[in-house]
């Protein structure tokens, strides 16, 4: 090949085979006459029975045929992806290994990455090379086997980026798993440097050529927040310097209704050389406690999402002190140590219980408070029931208040024995007791007890069988030190020692703070050290995929706290939210000290950008030409079939088409929304568009007539009737829907049925009208059959012909029949429950529930209601004055119907008026 064809290539050349059947299409087009023009014409009655004399009358003219075939050809060629100056890829011969990092850094432009993978695979298969593929974040242990690659296309199409990145250890192991012999490698890199990469590249270079495809766009990532001076500081990272770019950091959280919203947003501008920028958020505590995650706007990557956990939250702690301590003796105050421990990490409020509870604290601490007033105690118990955490410390006052005959305090986790126990004092034999190691299952499990923490006095629990279940920390001799009990959805925790240093040295040690931490009372900003996590087991609550979307974790195995503390994200510890007891911890993709560097490739590796610059794809242009030809074909067809009045209109049509392609749909949508807003402004009666213009006009006029009558006679003043397109319009703004049935009506979409069912369930009513006078009853007419098909997808209860005591017969007017343009046919509504009983002294039964969701009949009500805009009836009903009477009855039925929709069973409830009057003493 020479000339222009040398510079023209196709991305998917096999598509060109689709050009083969074109001659066949040519033949078919020649035989097929143009579609008939539908003409409304009353004179058709005179045409009936006239046969065509010239059978071969209409054929597609040859030039139109040529136009169409050319358009098809262009479309086929266009989809085959013609490329000017395709990049000549030197294809090797031997086996090819396709590698992809497929980590979070790839997720942001995964579609392009996958396209690249598939292109590499296609090229290799076209060249007949054996091929294998590995994602470096996936399973690297299994041996690499080169195959013909038939099953790889599916695998590649389903490949998803992982939320972690290739682990150094596994990459090193992969070197071992590489097959013997020579092979080339295509490596789709995410452009982030990793230590083990050099080793792997070196090993690959030993087997053959390595081509690296790397996007020039650098990956962005977000480091977890730090709290600095009460502000949140986040660091945005970029894998190496690049062009100047602006990114936005979003803070997302739940609003009081539990809906996720954007709480704050700041933009960061990266200059060309920057690879790291900081952003600070100053959020009030109320907002800060709501934060669920931080995110880089528009970067769909797990690395660009940081989940917030307890570390960000500041709990509101109410501290109630046992009573007045002499001024100046701070160190003796039970509250002093708590205050010191909690102040840096929580919002501490102090005062009396009556003042503090309305402030909705997360935790209430009672430090040596013996007795509460009864109403305080009740309110506190309620608060705990609703999920509060009550933390109590013993002390001299509490010990003194314990008497043998007093009732059990419900706000203690375990019943206490009277008095206190002194150990190792001047008057006792034993030495002060140390702690026993915290038991498994205790929230304190894994905390290291310093040897110098001792207890010299405590209050004792009443021994009982249940006691051991409540103990979460004990002394070396086994007596309970901390007990806990659930109460409703909250809990009560009691330290059997005082909160000051009088009874124990615990408040003086760091253990005190750690224990408070474990009870989720205070929380440390930043990451907890591994030691603080020791012994805990965390369960993944929600995990993140490579794109940064959160999903329910499902059945992932629990993770030991020590492992979680390493902040190593991998298949076993996917990033996400972990939970242990009442504590939440987020495992984020980026560790707090992680930095990103651009990948450096050794000499001998060919690096290509993902975006090829030299190639010029012609696909768009060719397809546009095909589209233009098709439009020309449409215009030509219209002209040929005489549907276009003249060239002027054709011009207008072309302009309209062009405009339609540009922006009209949006305008139309906005207009739609406006219409809906207008309809929701008042109460609008709505009808379903059938597609039959005449019928829709009748429906509209009918509902207009009914609206006028309602306005004249009742307090219902409906807005203009609304034409509902079931697929498009929102139904929730309507209460009543008139649905005339035509045999050729299209079936609504599934979504439309969902909307209709929601509409019916929320009290809406549909009036189905088959307009066939229900002549044969049931589904004999085409309309009736169509109605059955249409209603099959609807949630309709059992139906009955409307009984004489139905509320529809008396919701405004007293009616016996429900005529429209036809009269006498039965009208169906929801069947009364079989248990309905006759009301005492009333000519009807007690039917007090609900609005019937559907009314079905064939009386062509809209035609009887129809009014023109002058308020004159549009259609003849019956004969003469009798017919006018029938029309009046039709209006009355309409009024009753709307009244029933709007007031429900109000009239039915009137049965009870005598009883109510009697009860009022009249």
């Amino acid at each position: 090949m020479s000339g222009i064809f040398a510079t023209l290539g196709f991305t998917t050349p096999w598509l060109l085979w689709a050009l083969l059947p074109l001659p066949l299409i040519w033949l078919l087009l020649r035989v097929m006459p143009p579609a008939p023009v539908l003409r409304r014409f009353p004179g058709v009655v005179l045409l009936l029975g006239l046969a065509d004399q010239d059978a071969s009358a209409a054929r597609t003219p040859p030039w139109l045929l040529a136009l169409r075939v050319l358009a098809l050809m262009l479309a086929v060629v266009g989809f085959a992806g013609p490329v000017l100056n395709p990049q000549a890829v030197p294809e090797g011969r031997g086996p090819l290994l396709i590698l992809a990092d497929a980590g979070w850094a790839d997720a942001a432009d995964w579609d392009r990455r996958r396209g690249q993978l598939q292109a590499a695979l296609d090229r290799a298969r076209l060249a007949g090379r054996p091929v294998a593929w590995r994602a470096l974040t996936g399973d690297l242990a299994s041996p690499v086997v080169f195959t013909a690659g038939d099953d790889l296309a599916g695998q590649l199409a389903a490949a998803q980026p992982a939320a972690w990145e290739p682990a150094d250890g596994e990459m090193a192991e992969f070197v071992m798993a590489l097959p013997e012999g020579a092979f080339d490698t295509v490596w789709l890199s995410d452009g982030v440097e990793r230590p083990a990469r050099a080793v792997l590249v070196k090993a690959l270079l030993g087997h053959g050529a390595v081509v690296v495809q790397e996007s020039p766009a650098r990956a962005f990532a977000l480091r977890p927040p730090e709290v600095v001076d009460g502000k949140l500081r986040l660091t945005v990272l970029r894998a190496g310097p690049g062009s100047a770019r602006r990114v936005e950091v979003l803070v997302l959280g739940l609003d009081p209704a539990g809906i996720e919203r954007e709480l704050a947003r700041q933009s960061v501008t990266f200059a060309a050389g920057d690879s790291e920028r900081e952003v600070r958020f100053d959020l009030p505590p109320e907002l800060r406690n709501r934060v669920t995650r931080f995110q880089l706007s528009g970067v769909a990557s797990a690395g660009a999402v940081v989940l917030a956990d307890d570390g960000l939250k500041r709990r509101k702690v109410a501290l109630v002190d046992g009573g007045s301590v002499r001024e100046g003796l701070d160190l003796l105050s039970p509250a002093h140590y708590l205050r010191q421990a909690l102040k840096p990490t929580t919002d501490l409020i102090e005062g009396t219980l009556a003042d503090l509870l309305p402030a909705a604290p997360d935790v209430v601490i009672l430090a040596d408070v013996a007795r509460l007033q009864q109403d305080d105690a009740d309110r506190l118990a309620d608060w705990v029931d609703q999920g509060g955490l009550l933390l109590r410390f013993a002390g001299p006052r509490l010990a003194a208040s314990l008497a043998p005959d007093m009732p059990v305090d419900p706000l203690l986790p375990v019943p206490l024995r009277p008095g206190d126990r002194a150990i190792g004092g001047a008057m006792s034999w034993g030495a002060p007791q140390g702690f026993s190691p915290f038991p498994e299952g205790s929230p304190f499990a894994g905390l290291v007890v310093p040897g110098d923490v001792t207890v010299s006095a405590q209050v004792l629990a009443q021994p009982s069988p249940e006691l051991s279940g409540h103990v979460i920390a004990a002394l070396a001799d086994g007596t309970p030190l901390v007990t806990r009990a659930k109460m409703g959805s909250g809990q009560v925790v009691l330290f059997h020692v005082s909160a000051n240093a009088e009874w124990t040295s615990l408040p003086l040690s760091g253990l005190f703070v750690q224990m408070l931490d474990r009870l989720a009372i205070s929380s440390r900003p930043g990451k907890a050290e591994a030691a603080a996590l020791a012994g805990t087991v965390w369960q993944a609550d929600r995990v993140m995929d490579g794109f940064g979307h959160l999903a329910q974790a499902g059945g992932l195995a629990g993770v030991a706290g020590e492992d979680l503390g390493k902040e190593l994200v991998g298949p076993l510890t996917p990033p996400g939210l972990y939970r242990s007891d009442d504590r939440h911890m987020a495992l984020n993709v980026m560790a707090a000290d992680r930095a990103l560097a651009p990948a450096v490739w050794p000499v001998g590796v060919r690096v290509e950008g993902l975006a090829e610059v030299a190639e010029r794809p012609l696909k768009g242009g060719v397809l546009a030409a095909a589209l233009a030809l098709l439009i020309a074909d449409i215009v030509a067809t219209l002209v040929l079939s005489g549907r276009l009045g003249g060239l002027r209109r054709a011009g207008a049509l072309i302009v309209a088409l062009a405009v339609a392609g540009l922006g009209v749909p949006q305008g139309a949508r906005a207009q739609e929304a406006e219409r809906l807003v207008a309809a929701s402004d008042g109460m609008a009666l709505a009808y379903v568009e059938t597609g039959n213009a005449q019928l829709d006009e009748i429906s509209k006029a009918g509902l207009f007539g009914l609206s006028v009558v309602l306005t004249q006679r009742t307090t219902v003043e409906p807005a203009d009737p609304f034409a509902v397109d079931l697929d498009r319009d929102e139904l929730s703004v309507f209460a009543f829907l008139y649905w005339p049935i035509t045999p050729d009506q299209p079936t609504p979409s599934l979504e439309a049925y969902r909307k209709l069912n929601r509409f019916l369930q929320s009290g809406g009513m549909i009036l189905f009208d088959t307009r066939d006078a229900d002549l044969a009853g049931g589904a004999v007419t085409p309309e009736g059959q169509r109605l059955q098909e249409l209603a099959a997808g609807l949630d309709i209860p059992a139906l009955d012909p409307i009984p004489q005591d139905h509320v529809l017969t008396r919701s405004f007017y007293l009616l016996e029949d429900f005529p429209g343009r036809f009269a006498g046919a039965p009208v169906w509504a929801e069947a009364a429950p079989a248990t309905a009983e006759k009301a005492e002294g009333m000519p009807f039964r007690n039917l007090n529930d609900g609005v019937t969701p559907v009314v079905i009949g064939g009386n062509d009500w809209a035609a009887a209601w129809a009014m023109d805009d002058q308020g004159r009836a549009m259609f003849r009903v019956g004969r003469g004055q009798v017919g006018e009477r029938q029309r009046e009855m039709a209006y009355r039925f309409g009024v009753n119907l709307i009244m029933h929709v709007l007031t429900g069973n109000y009239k039915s409830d009137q049965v009870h008026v005598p009883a109510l009057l009697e009860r009022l003493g009249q």
Partner: protein
Amino acid sequence: MSEGAAQFGFDLRHRAEGLAAGLPPLLAAADHLAVALQQGLHGRRRVGQGTEFWQYRAAQPGDEVRRIDWRRSARSDAQFLREQEWQAAQSVQFWADGAASMAYRSSERWEDKGSRARLLALALAVLLEHGGERIGLADGMAPPRAGRAQLMRMAEALSLRDAGVDYGAPRASALLPGARAVFLSDFLGGFDPVRDAVLAAADKGVKGALVQVLDPAEEEFPFTGRALFESMGALLRHETKEAAGLRARYRARLAERRDELADLGRATGWAVTQHRTDHPAQTALLWLYQVIGPNRGQGR
């Protein structure tokens, strides 16, 4: 309810209440058309227009005494009778086809057949009402009466259309014996109901006129190419590959239908005419007025 909706509700009520006050547009148009015609017909003697009184004449032997107008007679020596004109006013009853086929028009430039038929009917009614005739509808919706109020009733009843009917048949159940009748339709549907209705009317001694109102497209059949013809109610269909090939035969059938109409007219003494919606309504009205109007009468 928001302010806008309240405003809307008020608007609707206002409109609803104003409905009864307005002159039906059909009646207004008919009035307009009738006035235009009256100027052309001014030769008619119109003393005491539309009222009972015509003239006094001297009493003659044989006149009943109670018919003497004493007030007039007291002013002279002779006795006078008060003669009343129009006392035996004619009843003219109309039927304007309201079926779906009448809603057809082939171009925006002229109105549809139904509108034209109703306009002609009401304009003639206006003229006749000026002449003191009793006017009404043939189907009993508005029994013949004199007076302006009757025109309102007729205008209301005339604008009713028949839903679900492709082609109309005369609704002439309430024709009074000896009355005159005007049927306006395209007469494209079945011809038997028309023939039956006209024969039944003729049996009652009703004379009248048949006006076939057609759209130009129905007369000329200008269609070409492959087409699927459908009646206005979509009940009838006819598909053709080349519509132009049907033109001659269509027009032959139309002519046949006209001949049938003309035959019927000859047999019953009814006048028959054709009217096209693209032609001015005055010509048809003039024709109608001459056929039905008071000049024709029973030799009066």
